[in-house]
C-alpha cells in the first residue's frame, strides 16, 4: 500500500442504509449520509422528516434497526452515547443539559474530572476549560455559575463540554432556535473556527438563510428518506425548499373563485413571546373572511405554530387582539374560542389531536362535548355520542371496526381523518387547519383538500397553515408569508408563483418583488 497517495479520502463520518422504525412509522428509511472532515454539513427537513432520529442514532442514543455507521472508514457500533463520545462524537441538544446551580467548569468536566490524590483538581480543570474556551473564542468565564448566564452563553458551555471530551464531530441540533441574531452570529464565528481546526459540524436546522450562510453541503430528509444531497454554493434556498416540501404527486384541486363575505377571524398586532422573552410572533395582523381560504406559507419554525396557538386560545399573546365572529376572545381559553366558532385541526394529530387510548366516540366528541346535541345540563348523552361517531366514521370512511375501539392502532391517514371529521362536522364558522395532510397518503390528501374547499364554499373562513408550497398554492385564495415571526407579505394566490413565494419564505422581499 505504498504505491502513492490515497486517491479517495475517507469520510470522517458515514452512515449507510440506516433504518429506524417506531411501530408502523418508519422514521429513517435507508438513510445514507457522508460527511467529510472539517466540513459544516446541514441536515435539513421538516418536523418529522427524521432528522432527530438520525442524529440520536449517530450519537448512540438509539440503535438503528438496520444499517451501519463508519467513523473514518471503520465500522462502529454504539450501545450508548458513551460509546459515541469515545469515538469523538459530541452533541449540543436543543434543550441544554446543564446543572444550573454549578459553575461552568464543573459542568464542563462533570464525569471526566481531572483529579489529584483522588480529589478533583480544581485548578487544572479551570485552566483546561479556559484554554479550550480561548482557543475557539468561546468567551466564557469558567468560574461563573451557569444559572446566571444567558441562553447564548449556556450554549457555549454545551459546546465546551463536547470539546473537553475531544469531540471531533459536533452535532448541533437546531442551535439557533433559542438565540438572538447577535448570539447567532457569534455562534457562526465559533463554528467557523471549529471547522478551520478540522472539526466536523453536523448542523440540524430548518432555517434556510443559516444554511446558506454557514454550511458547505446539505443533506435533505423528507418522510424519513434522503431526497437530495447538495453543495451549498451551488444551490439556492428555493431548491432546498422544493426538496424539503416537494411531493411527487401533482396536486390539483378543483375550485371556483372565492366570494369572500364578512371577516370572521381578525387578529390585530399580535405578539407572542417565548419563555425567555423573545418574540416568536412579531406584531402579526391578519383577517380571514367567510368563504375564503387564507394560506400561511413559511418554512417551519418561523412562528406559524405559535401564531396558531395564540389564535386558538392555547397560548396567551403578549400583545394584540383576536376576535372570532365579532367576539373578542384575546384573553379567553380554548372553550370560549370554540363557542365563538372555532374548529381547529392541529399540527400534530397524535400528540394534540387525539387520545390514543380513548375510543373513537370519545375522540370524535372532544371540543363539542359540552354542548347539545352531545351534552345537556352537564350530562353526556352516550347514545348521541355513539350515533354521531358512527355517522362520522361512515361519512369520512374512517377504517375502524367500531366507535367503541381505541384509535391508537389507526394508521396516520385514518387518525387524521378522525381529527378532520370531528372538526368539520359541526360546521363552525372558522376552521384553522394546520398541516392538514402531513404524512397521510395521496387518497386521504385529495379527500381532505376537497373537504377544505367544501368548507369554504359553504361560507366558512378557513385559515390554512402548511409547510408545503404546493398545498398552499392549490388551496388558498390569499397567501400570507411568515418569516421570523412576522407576516412578511400578502400575495394573491391567482398570481403567486412558487419562485416568488420561495424567495419570500427565505426572507428576501426585494428580490421577490
Amino acid at each position, binding site marked *: 500500500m505504498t504505491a502513492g497517495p490515497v486517491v479517495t479520502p475517507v469520510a470522517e463520518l458515514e452512515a449507510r442504509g440506516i433504518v429506524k422504525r417506531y*411501530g408502523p412509522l418508519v422514521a429513517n428509511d435507508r438513510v445514507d449520509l457522508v460527511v467529510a472532515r472539517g466540513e459544516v454539513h446541514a441536515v435539513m427537513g421538516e418536523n418529522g422528516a427524521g432528522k432527530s432520529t438520525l442524529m440520536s442514532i449517530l450519537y448512540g442514543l438509539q440503535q438503528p434497526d438496520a444499517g451501519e455507521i463508519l467513523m473514518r472508514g471503520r465500522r462502529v457500533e454504539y450501545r450508548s452515547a458513551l460509546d459515541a463520545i469515545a469515538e469523538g462524537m459530541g452533541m449540543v441538544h436543543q434543550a441544554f443539559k446543564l446543572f444550573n446551580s454549578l459553575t461552568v467548569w464543573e459542568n464542563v468536566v462533570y464525569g471526566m474530572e481531572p483529579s489529584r490524590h483522588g480529589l478533583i483538581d480544581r485548578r487544572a480543570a479551570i485552566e483546561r476549560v479556559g484554554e479550550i474556551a480561548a482557543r475557539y473564542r468561546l468567551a466564557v468565564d469558567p468560574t461563573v455559575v451557569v444559572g446566571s448566564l444567558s441562553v447564548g452563553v449556556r450554549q457555549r458551555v454545551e459546546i465546551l463540554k463536547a470539546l473537553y471530551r475531544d469531540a471531533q464531530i459536533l452535532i448541533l441540533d437546531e442551535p439557533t432556535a433559542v438565540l438572538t441574531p447577535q448570539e447567532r452570529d457569534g455562534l457562526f464565528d465559533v463554528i467557523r473556527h471549529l471547522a478551520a481546526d478540522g472539526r466536523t459540524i453536523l448542523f440540524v436546522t430548518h432555517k434556510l438563510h443559516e444554511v446558506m450562510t454557514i454550511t458547505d453541503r446539505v443533506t435533505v430528509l423528507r418522510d424519513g428518506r434522503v431526497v437530495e444531497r447538495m453543495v451549498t454554493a451551488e444551490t439556492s434556498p428555493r431548491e432546498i425548499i422544493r426538496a424539503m416540501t416537494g411531493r411527487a404527486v401533482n396536486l390539483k384541486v378543483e375550485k371556483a373563485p372565492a366570494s369572500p363575505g364578512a371577516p370572521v377571524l381578525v387578529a390585530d398586532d399580535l405578539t407572542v413571546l417565548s419563555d425567555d422573552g423573545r418574540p416568536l410572533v412579531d406584531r402579526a395582523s391578519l383577517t380571514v373572511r367567510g368563504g375564503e381560504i387564507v394560506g400561511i406559507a413559511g418554512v417551519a419554525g418561523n412562528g406559524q405554530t405559535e401564531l396558531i396557538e395564540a389564535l386558538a386560545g392555547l397560548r396567551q399573546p403578549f400583545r394584540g387582539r383576536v376576535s372570532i365572529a365579532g367576539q373578542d376572545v384575546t384573553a379567553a381559553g380554548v*372553550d370560549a374560542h370554540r363557542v365563538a366558532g372555532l374548529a381547529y385541526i392541529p399540527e400534530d394529530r397524535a400528540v*394534540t389531536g387525539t387520545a390514543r387510548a*380513548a375510543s373513537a366516540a*370519545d375522540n370524535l366528541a372532544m371540543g363539542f*362535548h359540552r354542548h347539545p346535541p352531545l351534552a345537556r345540563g*352537564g350530562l353526556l348523552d*352516550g347514545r348521541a355520542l355513539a350515533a354521531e361517531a358512527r355517522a362520522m366514521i361512515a361519512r369520512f370512511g374512517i377504517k375502524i371496526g367500531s366507535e367503541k375501539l381505541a384509535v391508537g392502532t389507526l394508521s396516520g391517514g385514518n387518525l387524521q381523518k378522525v381529527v378532520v371529521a370531528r372538526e368539520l362536522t359541526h360546521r363552525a364558522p372558522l376552521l384553522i387547519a394546520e398541516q392538514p395532510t402531513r404524512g397521510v397518503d395521496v387518497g386521504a390528501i385529495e379527500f381532505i383538500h376537497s373537504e377544505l374547499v367544501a368548507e369554504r364554499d359553504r361560507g366558512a373562513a378557513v385559515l390554512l397553515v402548511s409547510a408545503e408550497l404546493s398545498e398552499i398554492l392549490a388551496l388558498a385564495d390569499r397567501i400570507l408569508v411568515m418569516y421570523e415571526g412576522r407576516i412578511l407579505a400578502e400575495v394573491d394566490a391567482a398570481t403567486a408563483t412558487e419562485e416568488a413565494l420561495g424567495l419570500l419564505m427565505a426572507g428576501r422581499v426585494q428580490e421577490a418583488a
Partner: protein
Amino acid sequence: MSDVARPMRRLLRIPPVPLAILVGVVLGGLLVLVSGGNPVEAYAAIVTGSLAWDSLPNTLNWAVPLVGMTLVAAIPLRGGMINLGGDGQMVIGGLVAALVPLYLPGPGPLLIVVAILAAMVASGLYATIAAWGETRHGIPMLISSLLLSYPAIGICSYVVGFPLRDTTTGLAQTPMIPEAARLPVLSGPLNAGLLVMLVVAVLVVLYDRFTVGGYELRMRGLNARFAGYGGVPLARQMTGVMFASGAIAGLVGALIVLGSQFRFQDGALLSPGYTWSGLMAALLAGGEPLGAILAGAFFAALQTGGFAMQRETSIPRVLTMVLQSIIILFLAIRHGVGRRRETR
C-alpha cells in the same frame, strides 16, 4: 423468543389484576411455608375472618374509610394527577367534625350534617392549595400535596394537645362529642357512615360515566394536551378535582370521628394507614372508580382477615400487607414490560 419464555407469555395473557392477585397469593403462601406456617390455614383464617357472617360487619367498618381514601386517590388519578395529601386532609376533616358538635349549639341531627359538610369544605379547600401551587407557580402537586400534609397534621395535633384538649384525660384528644351528634347505629357495630360512603361511591362512579366533567377528567388522564386543545380548562379542572378529592378525605375523617371514635384523638385517624392502602387500591385500578372501589373493598377484607389470622394462628398480620405490596409491585412490573413491548 425462547422456549422458556413461552409459558411466561401464556401467563401474561391472563388479565393483569387477577394474575397479580394470583402471584401475590402464591408468593405469600411460599413465605408462610418458609417461615414454618401452614399457608392453607393462613388463607382460611383470612377468608373466614373477613367474609364469614359474623366477621362481615368488621370488614364493612374497615372498608368505609379505606374505600373513601381509595376515592381520594382515584379521582385525581383518573385525570393523571396524584394527591398524596390524604392524611392531612383526613385529619383536618376529623378535627372540624369533632369541633362542630362540641362548640356549636343545635339539635343533634343538624349538628351531624353541619359537621360533615364543614369537614368536607375545610379539607377540600386545604387540598386546593396544592392545585393552586401547581397552576399558578408550577410547584408539582405530587410533592406539595404530600408536604402540605405535615403542617395540617401538626396543627391539628397542637390544637387537641393544648388549647382544646380534654382536660379530664392526659391524652391529646378532644372531649367526647354529645351522643345526639353521633352517627345513628344501623345494627350491631354498623353505623350510618356506611350508607353515606355507599352513596358517595355510587355518585363518583355515575359522575365518571355519565357527566361532561367525568368525560373531561378521563380524557385529561389519557392525554392532557388533547383535553386542553379540546377546550377543557385544565387549571380550573385541577382545582375542582383537588377540592373533591380533599372533601372526600374530610368526609372519611368526619365519619370516623362521628361514627366510631366520638372524639378527635391525635394520631388515631392515621395509624391504620387508610391513605396509603387507598392509594394502592386506586393504583391497582388505574384510577377507574368502580375498579378502585372494588380494590379498596378487597384490601379492607384482606386487612380485616389479617387481624383474624393473627388472632387464630401464629402468623402475624403483616402477611396481608406483604400480599398487598406484591400485588402492586407485580402490576407495576407488568405495566413496564407491556410498555417496553409496545415501543419495540
